[in-house]
């Protein structure tokens, strides 16, 4: 693919998807601090038991199949 093709695709993208800087959405009008305080006061969610089982299963799988590590990393 040439540089010219890349520029053409960029132009097409810009005509398709509006840059956020041009939009009122570029800035939030809400004060998010109250929401932050609520979040800080809430207890962190406990990790469900099946997540631990899943993590253990993946760890065992990687232990016995180390060749799968690059594959796993690729999809992360």
């Amino acid at each position, binding site marked *: 693919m040439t540089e010219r093709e890349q520029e053409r695709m960029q132009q097409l993208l810009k005509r398709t998807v509006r840059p*956020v800087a041009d939009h009122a959405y570029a800035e939030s009008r809400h004060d998010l*601090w109250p929401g*932050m305080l609520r979040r800080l006061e809430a207890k962190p969610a406990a990790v469900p038991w099946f997540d631990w089982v899943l993590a253990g299963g993946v760890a065992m799988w990687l232990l016995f199949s180390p060749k799968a590590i690059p594959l796993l990393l690729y999809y992360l």
Partner: protein
Amino acid sequence: MLVVEQPSDVLRQFSHGDLDAFEILFREHQGEVYGWIVRIVRDPAAAEDLTLETFWRIHRAHARFDPARSFGAWARRIATNVALDYLKSSRPEMDLPDDLVSPALPDPAVTEELRRTTARAFTRLPAKLRIAATLALIEDRPYQEIAEALGISVSAVKVRVFRAVRFLRDELKRQGIEP
């Protein structure tokens, strides 16, 4: 992008877990972090939630923050990771909000069908490529800034942009459109 830096005592207090210092930093950087995230995820409501998630992670990691370094750059890096997680977990073919799709202009080279097809192909981009393409090609952010936010080299950003463009071109060709 404007980067506001705080006096070092605020940063030091924050790194020791002081909530007042955290509030000062939150209020100072909330707009900047939100603006960065909304450019990536292109959804204002989600961007507000992700801004809170970013500052939540920042608060949890306060002990790892080095007050000698830039808080703004650190926050942007965390915000980018939060936005990346969001894009990975969101539905790949979810349409862009209508008001973030460019309005139809009397441009004979770009038909309505082409715009819609391109927008849909754009939402199918893998998250890592989509972030690079969004920031570099649509938002025109400098490659160096994108590289710092993603924690990769400028060359790696260029490779991702190249792969994103190739992906879009192939997607359009599959739809019978020669870009």
